[in-house]
């Protein structure tokens, strides 16, 4: 029996390239959550998140043997692949993407389902506003917020995923948070 917890990502990827199904399953279960959440947070759409998760792991089946642990963690490797797919999906869906107000979107459904007490409602509204503000950020800023703040990657790891310097990650994150603050203030003024 495959003792997956004791196997490193590199070991699992080696086994996957040799056709080991249990290794693939173990690797998928270890990483699918972070890939799915990243895609969901970047796109705001459940179907895009599912599509990206599928595409990422389909690609892993083909290129598992190319993974080099010296070049970064498997998580960063997966985020890098997921990022390419997400950006491609966002580009493809650009003419149709109205995540923020679309009644059928994942987040609109979730907001509509909140029927709690007033305090909870206010809190939910603020979180929902923040979610919308994140989704409304330009992709370059959105991805640093998703990677560093929502997925809690180290700056160095995020820089590896994005293929830029750590300083660039810091400055984009700083700018992204400033943009979020502006958006949240504007949204609050509108509400008031």
């Amino acid at each position, binding site marked *: 029996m495959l003792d997956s917890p004791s196997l490193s990502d590199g070991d699992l990827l080696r086994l996957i390239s040799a*056709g080991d*199904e249990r290794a*693939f*399953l173990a690797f*998928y*279960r270890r990483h*699918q*959550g972070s*890939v*799915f*959440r990243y895609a*969901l*947070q970047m796109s705001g759409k459940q179907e895009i*998140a*599912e599509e990206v*998760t*599928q595409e990422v*792991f*389909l690609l892993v*089946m083909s290129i598992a043997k190319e993974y080099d642990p010296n070049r970064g963690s498997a998580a960063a490797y997966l985020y890098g692949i997921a990022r390419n797919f997400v950006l491609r999906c966002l580009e493809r869906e650009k003419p149709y993407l109205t995540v923020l107000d679309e009644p059928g979107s994942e987040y609109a459904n979730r907001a509509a389902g909140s029927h709690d007490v007033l305090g909870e409602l206010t809190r939910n509204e*603020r*979180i929902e506003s*923040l*979610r919308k503000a*994140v989704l409304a950020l330009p992709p370059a800023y959105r991805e640093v*917020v998703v990677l560093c*703040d*929502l*997925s*809690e990657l180290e700056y160095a790891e995020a820089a590896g995923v994005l293929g830029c310097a750590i300083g660039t990650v810091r400055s984009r994150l700083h700018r992204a*948070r400033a943009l*979020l*603050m502006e958006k*949240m*203030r504007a949204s*609050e003024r509108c509400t*008031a």
Partner: protein
Amino acid sequence: MSDYNDREILDGLRVLASEEPRQAPKHVETFLLSAFRRRARRRRLTAWVTAAGIGAIAAGIATLVWLAEPMLKRAPVSDRAVASAPAQADSAAEVKYAVIRTDEVASSFYPLPEADALPPLESAMVVRVQLPLASLQLMGFPVNDEAGADPVEADVLLGQDGLARGVRLIQ
């Protein structure tokens, strides 16, 4: 209500991170598993076809040798032929016969991919055969796709067990 500050944004993002779904739906896993199984089946099939192809070539060569043997004009091996035999051949190997004419130009022997796994060469025989271009391609020779379909002449180096160790092309 107070204006937002950096701390509130960070707290809000933390809450947001904790509220997101943590798992992809089960049907994604099901789809990927079936894709992995399809892929594994395809790999096994490809390996089987490759092995069968190599086996067919070996059988073809053996048949050619068997059919051509009575007609071969056997001559002593020249120094050049022995010197160009594959490097893995045992130095004490006794090479008995070959079919080399003085007006021919022969390349060096190229060891066949599976020859490494065969026992060391104790005695050998060089046999002239005609090979289709496709066989040469499978043996790893670079073959121009635009070349004609005519077979090419080649010498096959057979070991004491009758199995082919190397091939050289004849012009």
